[in-house]
């Protein structure tokens, strides 16, 4: 037996092939992530230091720069889930299915945060953490519906029909954006503790540094939402791939057990 060392050429095949890093990130998401972090740092400075206190709400107004942007990001997530649900019901394509699930999960996080930060802001402003106000009630309903969409997509009844599960989840997903409309207009339709539109009117009721900080918050939360949505979409995509890989593997194993040669 020869003990001569292998030449570099002979060693080459034994080396692990060059592979892309096993993550859900890409150059674009890394740039977006860095910009989002920088934006968050700037937002913190404006929200907590550079913007003035409000005449009536004093410093508790600083919660607005988190509460309103998270609520708007939640609305965006619901809109994407509704569109993806409709497209999945129409096309039945994997991409829309994965997007619907990703947007619903990210929207759940932002809706939950909007509820919690609103509750904390409500205590110094209204004197209570919770009130069955039309906007709070409709937002709570939205949060429950978002959890419902995800539960319906995942419930696995014995011998469950995946298509039926998908249809049920998608139908609830279709109802999300109409509920967002109810959340938005609830302050006009019913008597509410919340004030009516502040920035979506032609003459916004806040201005100067406060308006700029609020807009900055909306942009930064939008960037964070996008970054999370892309990563969560890729997680869903990988889960689907693993399901496919697992199924292919199971078919190969069953065929091997039965002595059937693969076509």
């Amino acid at each position: 037996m020869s003990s001569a060392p292998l030449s570099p050429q002979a060693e080459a095949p034994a080396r692990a092939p060059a592979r892309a890093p096993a993550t859900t990130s890409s150059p674009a998401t890394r740039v977006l992530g860095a910009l989002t972090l920088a934006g968050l740092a700037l937002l913190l400075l404006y929200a907590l230091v550079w913007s003035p206190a409000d005449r009536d709400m004093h410093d508790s107004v600083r919660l607005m720069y988190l509460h309103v942007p998270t609520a708007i990001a939640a609305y965006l997530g619901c809109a994407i889930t509704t569109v993806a649900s409709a497209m999945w019901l129409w096309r039945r394509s994997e991409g829309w299915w994965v997007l619907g699930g990703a947007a619903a999960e990210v929207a759940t996080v932002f809706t939950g945060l909007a509820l919690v930060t609103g509750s904390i802001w409500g205590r110094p402003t209204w004197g209570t953490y919770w009130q069955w106000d039309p906007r709070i009630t409709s937002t709570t309903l939205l949060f429950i519906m978002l959890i419902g969409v995800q539960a319906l997509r995942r419930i696995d009844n014995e011998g469950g029909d995946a298509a039926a599960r998908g249809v049920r989840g998608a139908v609830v997903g279709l109802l999300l954006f109409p509920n967002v409309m109810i959340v938005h207009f609830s302050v006009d339709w019913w008597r509410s503790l919340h004030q009516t539109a502040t920035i979506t009117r032609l003459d916004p009721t806040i201005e100067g540094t406060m308006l700029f900080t609020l807009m900055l918050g909306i942009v930064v939360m939008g960037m964070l939402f996008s970054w999370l949505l892309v990563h969560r979409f890729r997680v869903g995509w990988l889960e689907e791939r693993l399901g496919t890989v697992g199924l292919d593997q199971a078919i190969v194993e069953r065929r091997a057990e039965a002595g059937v040669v693969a076509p």
Partner: protein
Amino acid sequence: MTHAYYVALGWGIGLVVLAAYSFRTVRRGRALAQRVPPEQRRWS
């Protein structure tokens, strides 16, 4: 600063939740990506 407790609580919870969810999503993706062939990870 007035209402400092509420401002710190609200921002604290918000940032911690967003950071934790981001971290969990990236870790989940990393764990799954290691089990999927590179050619099926279209973004890499």
